[in-house]
């Protein structure tokens, strides 16, 4: 293992909790599939659940917005984006390491839209003296964006009372930058107000986080600079919020991409593993599974003599090792 990637939030735009009706439907599906021997004792129940309830359930994608943790073999760690998943991450870290972390929290910001910063006011380590947060990004005005949501009338606690040390670091795009042993290269994406992808290299492996980016179909080809940016990456975390039809019609210039274009780019860039991210809040778990399955189908047709791309859909709690 060179790096472990853990997804704490994978939803786009706004947190999307499962509704009671969805839960009821799930329980119904499980009960319909269960046989008497599946529930005869706790071990049998655990087996039944562990084996996916005989296919009664789709993948449960979860509803937190963007937050991804990358951990190297030596324990060095990067967090990407402060979506609502950052609250879950904070709870996990505090339970594991106690209230004060002996190492700083190093966080990369893709951009400053609300769904990518909304977890910060609930990131408890930020309130505790002794913690240090280094927040990196390519945008001007990072501090102002965090302060704006962290105080009246949006939030009861002003930014100034945070007990931790919070440092903002502006980094230049297109140049490798080192953070705690990770080599990080930012890349500008087409998105309202700009967003930045990050290619992160460590110990011979690399991960590319590329959320919130639209790719114009007529630009896609071997000479599209993005192809060089992602070329050969072990894992491409890719925004597939909309369908291709939406991105070239009613949602053109909304700054997001599709499963179809993700497959095209991953094939051209010889990516090992493409995982979809920033899921559309309107899409059910069943729909997201369908989007992944259809992408695998189109990859088989489109691949020809290129290297096969593994395709998955990221969900809250997923861990991938590269």
């Amino acid at each position, binding site marked *: 293992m060179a790096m472990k990637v853990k997804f704490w939030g994978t939803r786009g735009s706004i947190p999307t909790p499962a509704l009671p009706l969805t839960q009821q439907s799930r329980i119904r599906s499980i009960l319909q599939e269960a046989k008497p021997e599946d529930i005869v004792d706790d071990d049998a129940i655990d087996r039944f659940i562990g084996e996916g309830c005989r296919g009664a359930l789709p993948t449960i994608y979860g509803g937190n917005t963007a937050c991804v943790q990358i951990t190297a073999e030596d324990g060095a760690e990067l967090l990407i984006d402060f979506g609502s998943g950052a609250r879950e991450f904070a709870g996990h870290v505090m339970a594991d390491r106690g209230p004060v972390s002996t190492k700083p929290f190093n966080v990369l910001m893709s951009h400053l839209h609300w769904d990518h910063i909304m977890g910060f006011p609930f990131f408890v380590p930020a309130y505790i003296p002794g913690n240090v947060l280094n927040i990196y990004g390519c945008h001007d005005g990072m501090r102002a964006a965090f302060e704006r949501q962290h105080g009246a009338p949006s939030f009861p606690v002003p930014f100034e009372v945070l007990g931790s040390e919070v440092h903002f670091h502006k980094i230049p795009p297109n140049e490798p930058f080192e953070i705690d042993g990770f080599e990080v290269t930012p890349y500008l994406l087409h998105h309202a107000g700009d967003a930045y992808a990050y290619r992160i290299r460590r110990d011979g492996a690399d991960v590319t986080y590329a959320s919130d980016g639209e790719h114009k*179909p007529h630009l896609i080809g*071997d000479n599209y600079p993005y192809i060089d940016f992602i070329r050969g990456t072990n894992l491409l975390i890719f925004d597939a919020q909309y369908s*291709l*039809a939406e991105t*070239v019609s009613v949602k053109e210039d909304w700054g997001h991409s599709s499963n*179809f274009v993700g497959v095209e780019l991953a094939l051209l860039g010889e990516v090992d593993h493409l995982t979809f991210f920033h899921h559309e809040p309107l899409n059910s778990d069943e729909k997201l599974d369908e989007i992944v399955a259809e992408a695998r189908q189109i990859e088989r047709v489109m691949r020809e003599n290129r290297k096969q791309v593994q395709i998955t859909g990221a969900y809250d709690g997923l861990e991938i090792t590269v």
Partner: protein
Amino acid sequence: MPAASEQSPLSVVQTDSGGCLVLSVSGRVDHTNSASFLSELQAGTEASKPGPGMVIDLSQLEFITSAGLRGIVIANKAVADAGGKLAISGLKKTVAEVFRISRFDTLFPIGQSVEEAAALVTQ
């Protein structure tokens, strides 16, 4: 997906079906030839004026990528701006899958045959 040095085979032929211009596309549309495809579509939309619109027959098309699909959206807008309609005909299995997965099947009327698609344009 072929390398950039190779250009995928593509042919676009203009015909007429009951007063409706038909563009018959054969071969494959991908990133190596999508600019040529767009030029052919533009020529077709010009040739369709003044008229009820245009049918793009894809019964001989092997595959189409996002760049080609975008070209059809642009052609549709040009035809609509001139007061016409655009319909698609003859999707073979693989291209039908592309239309379904990309959700392009929700953007255009689709006929089984050229005649059926022409009727969707002229009615």
